[in-house]
Each structure stands twice: as C-alpha cells, then as structure tokens.
C-alpha cells in the first residue's frame, strides 16, 4: 500500500481517542463542542452548521468507499527550481510542512470508488503551505485527469488553496495552464468533472481547475474568490459587503451550481455522476 494509507489509520485513530474529553470552540457560533461529537458529525457544528476544516485524508474517507485504491504521483517531491530564499529557504519550508502535515505536498491524487463507481480524484491539503499549487500539485492533477481519460472515468477535485506557490515563481503560474490543458482533454473525451470548493479557495486554483467543473459545488460558508479580501480592501480602500466571497455570495452571482453540506456531499456527488456518466 501507499505511504499515506500506512500513516492514515494511526493518525485518525489517535485523534479519535484523544477526543473523548476534549472541547473545541465553534468559530461559527461560539458554542463549546465535544471534539468526539464534532468528529462524529463530520466536523460540522450541530448547532450552527459551521464547517470546520478537515484534512485531505478525512475528505478521502468521507467521499470514497474505501479511500484510493491506487495513488498517482505519490513519489513526487517539490524541487527548488528558483533556489528561492526569503526569510527561509524553500526546501526548509517544504520539510517543515511535511513534518507538520504528514504529507509530501498539497494534494492527494488517486483512483477509488464512490458508491461503486470508479472515480479519479484529487483532494487538496490546505495545511501544506496554504494548499498552494506548485509543480507537484500541477503534475498530480494532470496525472489524475489523464488517468480519468485512460479509464473513461469521471474526475473530481476537492479544492482548498490560497493560490499559486510563490516560491516556485513562474512554474507555479504555469500549473494553472497545465491543469486547464488537462481539463480540456478530459472535456474533449466527454467525461464529467466535478469541482468541490472548500474553505478557502482563492487565487490561482480558483482561476483554473476549481472554477472549471461541469458542476461546481461548495461547502456552506466557504471563502471562494480570485483575489483575497485583504488585497481587494487595500486596492479599493472601502469596506467589503457582508458575506462577500462566501459560497452563498458566489451562488447568488451565478458562479456555483449548488452549496452542499458536508454530510450530503457524497450522496450529491454520487447522484450527479449517475446523471452525467
């Protein structure tokens, strides 16, 4: 089995054991919630419906019958093509993220089944340098979309990203083009692509594969935008409207097909695929 499945089981189990007597405060309504209850509820606040962030592995568990049966690009690691150094060298940032998150880059890609149907999927990991898209993310997206074409399978990507990975400079920007090119090939093959936008999805990921779904879904309350709210505020020097750049705002403005609560996500995806496959 692949590296993450070996690590995945103990990580989740450990978390669940700890959870029994631990509280977590809801960012939505301020209620104190038992972590164990929260996890049983897919980390959605039972009082206000606030969706807490979950990891890529947790989405994998939530959406796929038995995780990924095969992974794509699991042996790929970020290079440092620009030899980029700011306050820290880029390879050190990667190492720190690997140690903290237990993953090797900001996306898991693979093939698995959703209600018995083969799906090629990608799930972004916001915890890994803000879910930023560098060469490894772009390559894994291309591989999963190409695998979908080869197997005549639908594709699904769960996005969570602050945008392009600055430390890879122009290469990170080119991943937008690369992923859109792969999506063109999938579309030309007549295969469905479902995009699920989770909190937050902004920048280059929104300006490429995340907004290109045949169907674009988002979780309630997710921040979704091209520019980040801080940048917009600094540019226009006025306050932003209430609920600006939330999933609800995007749905109202015609950018999303529907907003789906996490508990209904798998069923919705499954039904959509039945319509489109």
């Amino acid at each position, binding site marked *: 089995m692949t590296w993450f499945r070996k690590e995945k089981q103990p990580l989740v189990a450990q978390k669940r054991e700890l959870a029994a007597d631990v509280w977590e405060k809801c960012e939505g309504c301020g209620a104190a919630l038992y972590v164990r209850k929260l996890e049983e509820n897919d980390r959605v606040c039972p009082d206000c419906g606030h969706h807490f962030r979950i990891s890529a592995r947790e989405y994998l568990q939530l959406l796929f019958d038995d995780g990924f049966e095969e992974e794509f690009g699991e042996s790929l690691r970020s290079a440092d093509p620009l030899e980029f150094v700011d306050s820290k060298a880029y390879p050190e940032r990667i190492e720190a993220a690997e140690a903290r998150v237990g993953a090797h880059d900001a996306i898991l890609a693979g093939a698995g089944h959703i209600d018995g149907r083969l799906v090629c999927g990608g799930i972004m990991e916001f915890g890994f340098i803000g879910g930023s898209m560098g060469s490894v993310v772009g390559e894994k997206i291309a591989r999963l979309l190409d695998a979908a074409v080869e197997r005549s399978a639908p594709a699904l990507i769960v996005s969570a990203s602050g945008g392009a990975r600055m430390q890879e*400079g*122009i290469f990170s920007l*080119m991943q937008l083009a690369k992923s859109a090119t792969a*999506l063109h090939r999938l*579309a030309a093959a007549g295969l469905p692509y479902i995009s699920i936008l989770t909190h937050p999805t902004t920048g280059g990921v929104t300006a490429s594969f995340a907004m290109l779904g045949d169907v674009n879904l988002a979780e309630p309350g997710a921040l979704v935008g091209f520019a980040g709210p801080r940048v917009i505020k600094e540019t226009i020097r006025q306050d932003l409207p209430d609920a600006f750049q939330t999933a609800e705002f995007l749905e109202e403005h015609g950018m999303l097909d529907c907003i789906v609560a996490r508990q209904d996500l798998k069923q919705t995806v499954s039904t959509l695929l039945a319509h489109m496959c």
Partner: protein
Amino acid sequence: MSDETRSGKAAGPEDSEPLSRYERVKLARHPDRPFTLDYIRILCSDWIELHGDRKFRDDPAIVGGWATLAGRSVMIIGHQKGRGMKENLLRNFGSPHPEGYRKAERLMQLAAKFGRPVVTLVDTQGAYPGIGAEERGQAEAIARNLQVMAGLPVPIVTVIIGEGGSGGALGIAVADRVLMLENAIYSVISPEGCAAILWRSRDRAEDAAEALKLTATDLAEFAVVDEVIREPNGGAHLDPDATALAVGSAVERHLDELVEFSGDELIERRREKFYAMGRWEDTASA
C-alpha cells in the same frame, strides 16, 4: 526543447549591459513604453477593433480585433494601458475585469471559426481585484480562457511586451509560442506583493524581484518563454518603431511555422508544451 527556444536564447540579451532584475521591472512599467495599440498602429493594416463581451460591457483594459499582419489576417488581442491619467482611468491602468477576459474569449472563438491565427500582447499588472470583478467571476473568466486556449484549433502566438502579471496575464497567454521582450517581466506575483507577504514589507521588492526570477532571460532558461526579443539600447520606450518591427518579424516567423500544423496537432503540441512546465523530483526513480 524546441529549436526556436535555442535560437531565442542565442539571440537573447546576454551581451547587453547588465541590469538588475528590479531595473527591468521599472523598464517594463515605463509609462512611455509602447502599448498594444501602438504595436497594432505600427505593424498592422485593416485594423478593426471589436468591442464587448456580449454579456455585460466592453472592457477598455483589453482591446482586440481583426488586423492584417505581414499579409495575413489575424485576431490581435492585448491588454491596453492608458497614456496619461485620463486614459488610464478609462482603461483601469490595464487591469481587466471579467468582461475583458470574456471579450478575449469571444474573439478567440471568432478567430477559430474562420481559421485565423490569434496574436496576443500581454501587458498588465494583473486582473483587477475589486468587488464587481469578484461578483462577475474574475476567476471563472480567467479559468475559462485557459481551457478555451488549450483547445483552440488555430495558432496562438503571445508576446509579453511589458508586465506579465500572474493570472491576469496568463488569461490570454496559453499559446503555441510565448515570446518576450528583453525588458518585459512575467511573474506569478508582483515583486511588491511578494515582498509584502514573504518579507512583510513592500520595500523589499528588489529582493523579491531577484528571488522570483521574472526576467525574459530567466524565463527563457526555464523554457517558459520560447524567444527573447531584443529591445533598442535603453529600452523599448526610446524607439517604439524599432521595437514593434522586431516584435512583428518574430511573430511572423513563428506564425509561418505554426500555420503548417493542423488544429489537432496544434492542440496536442500545446498540451505537451504546458505539461512540460514544472520541476519536481521523483523519489521512485531516484
């Protein structure tokens, strides 16, 4: 790597006076630098500007239309900065809204319908970050263009003539050939924006420009740019006519090569070109 890239590097700016990366950033932003409509005026005949996205409005930050370039009908599309404050306000300093990208998309589809090549000129600090831009789907408009360009069955040649500001530049730059003027820049983020995030001070823009490796020479080395077009000594603004002629002959040469390919071949080669853009290590093959 293609032959064009090698010849581009050979014709590159290695032997010109060395400028720092941030000095090139300043040249790329020079207010007297030739803009898209200057290139069209100098290089093209039979120019007819086509306005509007047919959905919301005409965005003056992107211009486009039919033109004859070296005896060939082409669709030219480019970012357009203003000359002076009044025109800059009209053109939003060359920062498009979604309707600008949607106009570009409409014109590319028009070119494809009639089998004409597309030439795009990139010169923007970026797509505009504003309330209306978000409401009308700036991200979707750019994303859509990337996918449409990936599947366009006619030749696309892009020239980065000034500032290549991130997604706002790429939104018209998924091309068969990407050429770049010697003092133009192309980057995932502005040096100032990068400095503000990673150095926590916009004053560190010079350091960020160095780190981002955003010059034409850098990008030719990365094979993101196929050819570097020399500028007159001191920069394009000192001799717009000579600059435009150099751009025109480079574009013509690339189009001459590209028109030999079928639509399917162009699409497949374009896919391979962008698939090759990325650097990683594979621990399985190490």
